[in-house]
């Protein structure tokens, strides 16, 4: 038996990355995005969720010049190039913040909490930051 045969069939797991924090106030948004871009290189099922203040990460027109921090919001546009296509935003989180899908820097799937709940319950690995 060859070594690779020992490994059996390739496992594909469902990975969900959950963002609940606003950008810039803390680094979690940026460092989660860095994980997702790496994760995209593995042949796994990747989804990214934005809920609560996490929805602020995707707000258009971020301009960080005056705070001296790096503006990483354009990097969300790279998710598509990396074939990360399951990007979910909770509708209630958007609405209660006075935002709509038009406010966001990338196209996303806006889901009611009840639907998001179902998708969350289908994951194999959930990474939050």
């Amino acid at each position, binding site marked *: 038996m060859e070594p690779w045969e020992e490994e059996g069939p390739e496992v594909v797991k469902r990975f969900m990355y959950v963002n609940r924090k606003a950008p810039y106030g803390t680094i979690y948004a940026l460092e989660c995005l860095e994980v997702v871009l*790496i994760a995209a290189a593995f042949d796994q099922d990747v989804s990214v969720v934005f809920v609560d203040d996490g929805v602020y990460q995707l707000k258009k027109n971020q301009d960080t010049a005056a705070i001296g921090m790096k503006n990483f919001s354009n990097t969300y546009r790279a998710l598509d190039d990396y074939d990360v296509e399951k990007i979910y935003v909770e509708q209630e989180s958007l609405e209660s913040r006075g935002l709509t899908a038009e406010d966001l820097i990338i196209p996303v799937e806006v889901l009611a909490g009840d639907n998001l709940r179902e998708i969350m319950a289908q994951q194999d690995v959930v990474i939050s930051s």
Partner: protein
Amino acid sequence: MKFGILVNEGPFTHQASDSAYQFAAAAIEKGHQVARVFFYNDGVYNSNKLSEPQTDDRNLVDLWAKLGKEHDIDLVVCIAAALRRGIKEEVLKDGFRISGLGQLVEAGIENDRLVVFGD
């Protein structure tokens, strides 16, 4: 069962690293395997060998290193998070290694469970 653990906070400031350590020790005690602990965000500070807590306090850097050595746990410090925070080979505690974020994804793929400890 095989566990992966993600630690997102440094020692002392948040309880995350303490909880992760207690969880890992309990899992081993129960006969499970902790295959890898991945240190991300401020979690990279858990590997700083210069850390010197008061003598009546726990030393998480030592505790992780010892647990890792005794139970063959792969203690991985994220290179991207570590570089910006000034954690480099010259201050890295024996038993930890610096590597890429791919090791976190692998920990999720290869283990039965990945448990995240953070703020």
